[in-house]
């Protein structure tokens, strides 16, 4: 019987003591995925993540659409981080087509990307709060992120799916009087998120639930190829905005937040510190941005790549490094498009971290990986 089964469907035999438990896809603590955990009493002995519930075949669809019509569906994996998820694609297409972007557009992109990072992280923080039963931490970030959503709505006209970045710049210029409003909102936002320390990060209940759970050492973080806040919480100073600055990040002063502990607490704190850094970057960018000028290079209709070529571009998104591998064969559509997303890369750490943990710690460890299932499945 077992011999006839294809290699993907072999049946596993387990011990009598071990109970197999399906967490998700209908479970408050799982999101859009299933985690198959095997427990011995209260302790997890093995864990097998089963993603793919939102696998929509974006990469196949990209082969049927041209470079411009690919934009709306490529931002859908992470709609609340849509600027960042589109960023590597746009950079890659610009390199393929050989487009130079105006200076002002680069600054607008950086501002949008940082605003989006905050919007994403706030949503993540809200869900992290409700996962741990901390209702205040759902309400506060969910309310405060609306401030920044308003800003993005002013820029692009849409609440979450902006489709604002296009090869050659950004779709629209900033609205009049934007700098002032943005500065005011961001300053207020920063003041608000600093208050979270008192209610959440210094909360003894949170600390006792997350400290020393799911510890990922520095060596393992490197070996497993994790990225973003998971990597930085394990003591590896690696932020693509610093290490491989794209657009105008090298003219800005970017500070990356690193924590040594590598436990759930550190992983949940690093994105919060990153948000303050984002506020810093936005303020710098607003100051240095050219006050006027073009924000978009006009493209020819149906732009084509220049023969056989491939690019790999990456940016630092809310969930870590986000790479886009585009292979072009000189047609109007990409020959192959592969998105290497932070969530998918961090997922490999989940079975590793959950082994030996208590079942009750599963939500805190799982969501601290900064994981967004829709993005991982693509």
């Amino acid at each position, binding site marked *: 019987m077992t011999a006839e089964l294809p290699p*993907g469907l072999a049946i596993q035999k387990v011990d009598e003591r071990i109970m197999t438990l399906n967490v998700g896809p209908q479970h408050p603590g799982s999101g859009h995925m299933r985690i198959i955990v095997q427990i011995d009493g209260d302790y997890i002995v093995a864990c097998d993540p089963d993603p*793919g519930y939102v696998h929509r075949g974006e990469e196949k669809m990209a082969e049927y659409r041209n470079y411009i019509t690919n934009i709306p569906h490529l931002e859908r994996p992470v709609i609340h981080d849509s600027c960042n998820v589109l960023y590597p694609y746009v950079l890659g297409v610009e390199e393929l087509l050989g487009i130079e972007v105006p200076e002002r557009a680069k600054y607008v992109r950086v501002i949008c990307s940082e605003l989006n990072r905050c919007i994403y992280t706030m949503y993540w923080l809200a869900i992290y709060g409700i996962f741990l039963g901390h209702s205040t931490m759902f309400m506060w970030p969910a309310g405060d992120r609306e401030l920044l959503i308003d800003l993005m709505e002013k820029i692009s006209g849409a609440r979450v799916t902006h489709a604002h970045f296009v090869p050659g710049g950004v779709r629209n210029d900033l609205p009049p009087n934007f700098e002032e409003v943005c500065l005011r909102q961001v300053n207020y936002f920063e003041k608000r998120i600093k208050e979270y320390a008192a209610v959440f990060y210094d909360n003894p209940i949170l600390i006792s639930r997350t400290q020393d759970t799911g510890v990922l050492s520095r060596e393992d973080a*490197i070996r497993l*190829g994790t990225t973003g806040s998971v990597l930085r919480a394990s003591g590896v100073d*690696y932020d693509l905005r610093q290490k491989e600055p794209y657009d105008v990040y090298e003219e800005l002063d970017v500070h990356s937040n690193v924590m040594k502990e590598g436990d759930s607490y550190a992983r949940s704190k690093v994105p919060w510190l990153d948000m303050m850094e984002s506020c810093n970057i936005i303020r710098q960018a607003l100051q240095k941005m050219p006050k006027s000028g073009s924000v978009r290079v006009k493209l020819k209709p149906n732009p084509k790549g220049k023969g056989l070529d491939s690019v790999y*571009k990456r940016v630092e998104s809310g969930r870590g490094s986000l790479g886009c591998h585009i292979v072009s064969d000189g047609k109007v559509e990409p020959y*192959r498009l592969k998105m290497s997303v932070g969530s998918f890369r961090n997922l490999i750490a989940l079975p590793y971290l959950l082994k030996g943990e208590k079942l009750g710690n599963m939500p805190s460890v799982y969501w601290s990986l900064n994981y967004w299932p829709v993005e991982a*499945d693509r």
Partner: protein
Amino acid sequence: MSTDTKQVTADEKPAAKPAAKPAAKPAAKPVELPAFEKSISDKVVEKFGDKIEVEFVKENRVGIKVSRDDVHDVAEFIRDGLNYDHVESVSGVDYPQDKEIEVVYHIGSYSDSSLAKQILVLATRAQREDNPIPGKDATKLPSLRDIFYSVEFHEREVFEMFGVYFTGHPDNRRLLLPEDWADLPPLRKDFAIKGR
């Protein structure tokens, strides 16, 4: 990708903006390759000689092409000799006209700060079958999971999306597709979307 060595124009000043820099006019004059990237590719060429082929040397990207028999050795050298330590992405590219499927590893480094910008693009090709039986036909490659642990899920994805079986991979199960998927591996070129 064609077999000849392609050397795409790159930026001479390493400190200038790396993104969105258009390539200069193609071919015409001899191109000066970025020095650091050239030294990386030279090290690999020195070690393996004819077995590998340098596909391109761009700014921050070095492309190397190997046959499927040597990919394991080359990957081992990349880890031990060149200090690369993790794989960012494994993407398959289907070339039906060559009857081959290319698997591209994008390898980066966290521990070596001089390599932080660099991505080493290791490409290898597997034989392609017209009527694939995933896991049981000749579309096979050696797994790099024992060298780079981080390829585990990526290789599982390539297996289900292209039908490339990785020998030596401990867990070649289905990952993203539904359990009852019985069609062709979907990212192959001959799998056509209905109505397109």
